[in-house]
């Protein structure tokens, strides 16, 4: 993997820790001191995408459960895990695992590709996140249980979503689209106030 110290941020120069947009939270803040949306990007995340060969989905999930201790259930998006997000039929984005370990677990049941330089994970949270998603994402939040992933788009930029909590979401975006997505996110969240957290937070 490439040395992170020499990599440029995929999110561009506007993604700087601190407060952006309106000063006070629109709703749900403690006296307006807290931003309506908090956003975080941690560079250097290990991402490996795995995809089962035709007809091998169930066997691959069993192998992943045995080798990586990840229970992917029946393979549906609702059975995703915070570090194993379903991005399509029998296809997953695994985070925090070394490619060699994933390859050893998957064996010849599927393919594993290092996407650490290809995918960027943005995490957003806060009382106003549903308001942001209302204008940026076509998905119905009332039919989206916590712990479920959805392959869809963010402001027409293709991405994989994962719902961490009632108001917390992860977006997995292709690296070359991440700068545009980050700028759109800052602009769209400005009306609520957005706090970009430091990667050390």
């Amino acid at each position, binding site marked *: 993997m490439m040395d992170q110290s020499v990599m440029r941020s995929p999110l561009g120069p506007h993604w700087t820790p601190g407060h952006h947009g309106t000063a006070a939270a629109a709703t749900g803040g403690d006296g307006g001191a807290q931003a309506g949306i908090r956003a975080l990007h941690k560079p250097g995340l290990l991402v490996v995408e795995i995809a089962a060969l035709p007809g091998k989905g169930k066997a691959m999930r069993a192998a992943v459960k045995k080798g990586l201790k990840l229970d992917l259930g029946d393979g549906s998006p609702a059975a995703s895990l915070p570090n194993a997000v379903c991005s*399509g039929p029998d296809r997953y984005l695994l985070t925090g695992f070394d490619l060699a370990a994933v390859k050893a677990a998957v064996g010849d049941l599927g393919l594993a590709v290092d996407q650490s330089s290809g995918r960027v994970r943005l995490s957003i949270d806060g009382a106003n996140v549903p308001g942001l998603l209302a204008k940026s994402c*076509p998905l119905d939040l009332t039919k989206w249980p916590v712990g479920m992933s959805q*392959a*869809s788009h963010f402001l027409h930029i*293709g991405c994989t979503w994962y719902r961490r909590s009632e108001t917390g979401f992860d977006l997995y975006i292709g690296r070359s689209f991440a700068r545009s997505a980050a700028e759109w996110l800052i602009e769209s969240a400005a009306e609520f106030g957005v706090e970009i957290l430091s990667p050390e937070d």
Partner: protein
Amino acid sequence: MLIPCPHCGLRPSEEFVPKGLAEAPRPALGGRAKPDGPAWQNYLHLRDNVADHNHEYFHHALGCRSWIVVHRHTLTHEVTGATMAADFWKADKPATTGTQDAKSPAAETAEDGQ
């Protein structure tokens, strides 16, 4: 228009790219030595364009990136089912929404008007 992706569930049509009729049989390639020009001309350009339910390929481009076959009415945009394209040509096709081959009242009305 909402399309029931077999993997993702109901999604807006803006996430999909339509790719034409799925029912037309694909001609044999033939190779450069024996290209079947008329057959490919028919396959690529000459379609019946019926005002009725059709099986059509859609690519879930802004989603799970699956190729699916959607059962859609070309006049009313009524969608009555969808299946994975890989399963569409299997002999034992999986059930979609259970109404894949049933004509809707709207389809019958359209036919009566012709």
